[in-house]
């Protein structure tokens, strides 16, 4: 059915999306929490920057990241000074680029979820001796669970679907940066339509199942709110 190259590309895609989702969960949660609760004037600009990848063509984002991570860019010089070497055309370069690319898909559902909880449950927790950090983990996170589910699924799926940023940053190295979307592109370029069909069908079914799980989960947890 699928060739070794296809399987390799699929595995790489899953690994990339999994790592990016995990990193964004750790990175996006505090950003979303801050955006949901801050009253600072620069909340607006920060929110806009976070949302930029939503409207920016992936090639534009990829281009700037390529410049930054390249041998003459600030990030590139830092990684070289640390002995890591330049990041473009490596797996970890791809991870970093994808983190930027998928950032809004993690932050925005979380921010909405945190905002809908409101101040009250945290005040209640404080009157029951819970420190702010304690209240965050024992009240805010459980109440925002549907938001976390949505954010993780969207981030994972969106990373799986990226193409433009991958080409700019990762190129097309088998087992390193050749993810499923690039593999399909390669098949089509080589007029291997049958191969492209199989891999495309896998992606289609995967995407549908992900969204199905998301929407089914959403209707189940839609009755909630503070009692």
């Amino acid at each position: 059915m699928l060739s070794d190259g296809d399987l390799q590309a699929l595995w790489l895609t899953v690994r990339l999306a999994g790592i990016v989702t995990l990193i964004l969960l750790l990175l996006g949660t505090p950003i979303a929490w801050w955006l949901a609760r801050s009253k600072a004037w620069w909340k607006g600009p920060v929110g806009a920057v976070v949302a930029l990848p939503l409207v920016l063509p992936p090639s534009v984002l990829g281009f700037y990241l390529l410049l930054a991570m390249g041998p003459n860019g600030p990030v590139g010089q830092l990684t070289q000074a640390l002995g890591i070497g330049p990041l473009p055309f490596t797996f970890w370069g791809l991870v970093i680029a994808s983190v930027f690319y998928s950032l809004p898909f993690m932050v925005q559902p979380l921010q909405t979820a945190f905002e809908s909880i409101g101040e009250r449950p945290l005040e209640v927790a404080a009157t029951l001796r819970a420190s702010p950090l304690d209240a965050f983990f024992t009240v805010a996170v459980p109440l925002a669970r549907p938001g976390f589910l949505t954010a993780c699924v969207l981030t994972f799926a969106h990373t799986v679907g990226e193409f433009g940023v991958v080409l700019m940053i990762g190129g097309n190295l088998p087992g390193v940066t050749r993810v499923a979307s690039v593999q399909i592109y390669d098949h089509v370029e080589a007029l291997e339509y049958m191969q492209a069909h199989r891999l495309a069908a896998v992606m289609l079914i995967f995407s549908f199942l992900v969204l199905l799980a998301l929407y089914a989960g959403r209707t189940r947890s839609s009755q909630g709110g503070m009692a």
Partner: protein
Amino acid sequence: MTGIQARFRLAWPGFTLEVELELPARGVTALFGHSGSGKTTLLRCIAGLEQAPQGRLLVDGEVWQGDGHWVPTHQRPIGYVFQEASLFPHLSVMDNLRYGLRRIPVAQRQSLDPVIERLGIGHLLERKPNGLSGGERQRVGMARALAVRPRLLLMDEPLAALDLQRKQEILPYLERLHDELDIPVLYVTHSPDEVARLADHLVVMDGGKVIASGPLADTLARLDLPIRLGEDVGAVLEATVVVVDPHWHLARVDFAGGSLWTRDQGLAVGHRVRVRILARDVSLAREQPSASSIQNVLRGQVDAMADDEHPGLVLVRVQVGTSRFVARLTKRAAATLEVAVGQALWVQVKSVALLK
């Protein structure tokens, strides 16, 4: 030094809280006022949920705020009951109760059973808050606040969000708390009925300021306050059931300075009750009425007079023994009777409400 000393100044657009208060270390203090009077904001300042920049708060001599010192809410030994019970929807009733209990020092922890029993929520423990009625939720909310063994209980209009029937369901629990708790309670309300039933001490707020503070009976009987209780102006007396007349289904209660007959409500002789007499149910007479349907007639002396809200009405305070009654008369009636301070009169009480 015991009790609560509070001083807060808080300015928001369109609202300023400016409060300096001393409150007793025992009993229920009602913070009474209309919406927007600042009573909830004052409660939130005491809880540390609101930070008044130039505030000072001492509880039992301990500084919670002031001198550059700020104790955050979660380190204050308080219990807080919110207007909407605000139970955690992701936890069962039992886990709601345990939430605070787990976070207090082990040495202070006590069995939840007495609290559960006291509020009658034993049959709800496994349920999720969403399945409870408003009254049940509020009882769980109170139990949860008590479970942390607070040294100060703060209640923000716990009955306001409930309909009349649910209020009647909860009031007995509150009255029990009032009798059994040995910690001070601050109780925010805009209901004169709750004040009369539950409070020992009354703080009246208006426009972000405290306009009166004192023991309940004294403060309620003050005529100089713009409390605007409307139809609820009246007196509250502490009394004891002394005689029960099974034939007429009546009970006699004695208060400091006299006694009153009221409908028998099944209370045993010796029971302490709180009696509420509304000003509109009190009339005055110069001569002892001989044939009247009003059976409660007391001898008293006019002690103060003040205009009522309506220009045609006057409030007259009458001293009976050491207790005070308030009567609402038309100004014409007062003029006809030549009511004046110091004058001795007969006080007719048409209706007496036993509060518990």
